[in-house]
């Protein structure tokens, strides 16, 4: 659709408004609403007082949906803690379709590899709108082809938490997969055959959704103990199904540190920068992404802390088994876990009192009274592409099609004292440093350095960091110099051709629009 467009402070054309999304504010700087003066008023929604019940278990999923009052045109949410094994999105949308419900807005915390089914529900008109952090496969293609009724809204984890609290994202019914649940709806992700660790996204949706359904295949005797992640007073109904997901794809083994020499080289350089920054000291806080070179940075950090006897304060984020091991070794005092990246974490979250389960607002919502990322010292993040202004794209592939996730990327980059982007200089022969990223997700003003295996570029805003890095003998280059060096190997690829039609918007964590996503022809 043709929309009224304006340029935001990154020079990106973004819509001033869109049907179904109302008025939209253009991005005006990462900290524009964080100077202590910005005010917001939560929208109020009517709630129904449920009749007292001593058993919330409904006879079937269909009956649960009927009792929830879900109707065509409403918004449903899901969490993505079941990783690539999730079956609940498909189960619920299938049941809704059988009940004749159509035109749903889907608002999961994210979508992954197990959610190609959503493209089918879109084709059949069961789902027509989408809010998410990330997409893969068929759903990404469907967005890029412009098949949703309104522009798809991509939010960061912190931004989604904020939107829900504000009421700009109103969830009518939340269907929350529960690896363990009792008859009154107390639930947790830290036990059961589909145990997934933290339920940080579910905790937030449960607090704000109009109606909350726990979907479980593991109804345990009341009361669920010893750990309750989402308590019963937030839950309306319990739906018992045969299976909420494929345990083999949920209970994935520990995420392994890469052995790819390119990724290890990137991690080694990134670690060199962490050291040079002077932040890796007693009491520091640390976060990495869940894979590739960013996770490999943890290996170097771990070896260094052990060797030098440095003890950190805490790690946050997506937590891997690797971080859980570092907690066990006493290298940190605590882990704040909003989402467990692998099943190796489950034992730790269930058994280690210093492994704390936190909700996503606590993790990254920029509008609350102090989210965890605000105090973070060091974060190592991944990227699909970066550009000469240090903007980062974690959403679009080289063909222009959506295939990534905003996740906590922009939240942690904005919060951390040192935000390092680790990225291979090229993938499949295509260079990773571009003149302009296709889709800006994390603004360059929040990125301190970009580290590739061929050297690192440091944001000109951080002359102090550049000096420290050079003094440490690290290969610091200008971003254009690094780009040119890579292009000597790869050449400069042709730009992907897009139409003018806006098929999605990327909302920055503060609710402003940082970029728009266009249809790929």
């Amino acid at each position, binding site marked *: 659709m043709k929309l009224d467009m304006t340029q935001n402070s990154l020079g990106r054309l973004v819509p001033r408004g869109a049907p179904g999304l109302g008025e939209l504010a253009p991005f005006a700087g990462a900290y524009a609403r964080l100077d202590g003066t910005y005010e917001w008023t939560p929208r109020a929604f009517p709630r129904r007082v449920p009749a007292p019940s001593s058993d919330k278990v409904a006879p079937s999923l269909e009956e649960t949906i009927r009792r929830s009052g879900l109707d065509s045109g409403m918004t449903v949410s899901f969490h993505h803690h079941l990783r690539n094994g999730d079956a609940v999105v498909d189960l619920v949308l299938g049941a809704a379709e059988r009940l004749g419900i159509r035109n749903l807005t889907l608002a999961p915390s994210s979508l992954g590899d197990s959610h190609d089914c959503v493209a089918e529900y879109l084709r059949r008109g069961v789902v027509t709108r989408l809010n998410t952090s990330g997409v893969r496969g068929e759903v990404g293609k469907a967005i890029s082809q412009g098949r949703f009724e309104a522009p798809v809204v991509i939010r960061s984890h912190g931004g989604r938490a904020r939107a829900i609290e504000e009421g700009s994202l109103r969830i009518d019914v939340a269907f929350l997969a529960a690896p363990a649940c009792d008859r009154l709806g107390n639930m947790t992700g830290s036990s059961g055959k589909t145990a997934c660790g933290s339920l940080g996204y579910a905790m937030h949706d449960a607090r704000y959704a109009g109606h909350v359904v726990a979907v479980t295949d593991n109804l345990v005797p009341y009361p669920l103990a010893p750990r309750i992640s989402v308590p019963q007073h937030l839950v309306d109904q319990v739906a018992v199904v045969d299976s909420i997901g494929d345990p083999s794809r949920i209970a994935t083994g520990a995420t392994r540190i890469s*052995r790819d*020499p*390119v990724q*290890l*080289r990137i991690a080694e350089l990134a670690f060199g920068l962490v050291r040079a920054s002077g932040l890796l000291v007693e009491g520091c806080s640390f976060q990495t992404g869940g894979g590739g070179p960013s996770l490999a940075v943890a290996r170097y950090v771990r070896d260094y802390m052990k060797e030098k006897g440095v003890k950190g304060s805490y790690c946050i984020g997506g937590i891997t088994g690797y971080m859980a091991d570092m907690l066990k070794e006493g290298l940190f005092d605590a882990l704040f876990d909003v989402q467990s990246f692998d099943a190796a974490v489950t034992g730790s979250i269930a058994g280690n009192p210093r492994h704390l389960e936190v909700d996503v607002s606590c993790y990254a919502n920029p509008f609350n009274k102090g989210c965890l990322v605000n105090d973070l010292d060091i974060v190592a993040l991944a990227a699909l592409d970066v550009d000469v202004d240090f903007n980062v794209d974690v959403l679009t592939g080289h063909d222009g099609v959506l295939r990534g996730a905003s996740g906590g990327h922009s939240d942690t980059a904005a919060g951390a004292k040192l935000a390092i982007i680790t990225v291979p200089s090229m993938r499949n022969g295509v260079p990773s440093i571009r003149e302009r990223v296709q889709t800006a997700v994390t603004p360059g003003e929040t990125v301190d350095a970009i580290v590739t*295996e*061929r050297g690192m570029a440091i944001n000109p805003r951080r002359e102090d960091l550049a000096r420290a890095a050079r003094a440490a*003998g690290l290969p610091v280059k200008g971003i254009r110099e690094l780009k040119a*060096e890579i292009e*000597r*190997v790869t050449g400069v690829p042709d730009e992907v051709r897009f139409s003018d039609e806006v098929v999605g918007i990327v909302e920055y964590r503060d609710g402003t629009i940082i970029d728009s996503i266009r249809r790929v022809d």
Partner: protein
Amino acid sequence: MMSSPRSGGRPRRSLLYIPGNNPGMIQNCAIYGADGVLLDLEDAIALAEKDAARALVRHALEALDFGGVERVVRINARDTPFFAADLAEIIPARPDAIRLPKVDSAEDVLEADRLISRIEAERGLPPGGIGIQAMLETARAIVNAASIAAASPRLVGLTLGGQDLAADLGIKATAGGLELLYAKSAVVIAAKAFGLEAFDTVYTAIDDLAGLAEQAALALSLGFSGKAAIHPSQVPVIHAAFAPTEKELRKALAVVKAAREAEERRSGVVAVDGKMVDAPVVAQAERTLELARLAGMEVPSA
């Protein structure tokens, strides 16, 4: 010191084999951290791929920036049909050196030298600019080590081909490598006798980094300048083995400092910690300082 007269002061602690038919690895030669790369046209390449690998390596030498990494190409042996074609295609791309496998006698080196010199002349390249590393891989080669080392001014180093030698000897190579001790020492002594560098053979168990560390330490103690690697993960282990300890570094600094002061006083005799220090000890200390610098240790100027 201790780099040979022809080494140009280049570090050669680690030389990493890169299959000549693997563009993904070749394009990253500059980032593995190795002092040099051995772009392999020989054992890593199947017969059907020899031509393609040769062309790929030539293009890589011409087009890619290897940073400060030394570029050595291991060609096929003199008795193969690929020998002359390898040199004809690779020499014009000006690698730093050719690694010549299965050198049994001085004549093997001289034949390569003649071909390289001819190509250099035809192409107007500076004569003698491209070095030869000779691989000694048979019992006969070990017996001829001295005459091989003396064969040509183009030689920069000798290296041991441990697996082929074990096969030739009909013995089983073990992790400890004791069975190759004589051959290793023979290569080192022949090399040093003629001002060349000596390189140790590969360690094939790529998951056994502890075993590699032991073998690299042994190589250093026997007098090798460096060791070949067959996986990037081996490079930092080899470098660590070649790095002196803090204590060794302190001692070396004291020796070099004392020697300098003695020189200024024009006094020949120096003692450090009550022990006499003579020229060989000073040379050893200089070598320690060089290895410390290569290892990225902080070395104050003595």
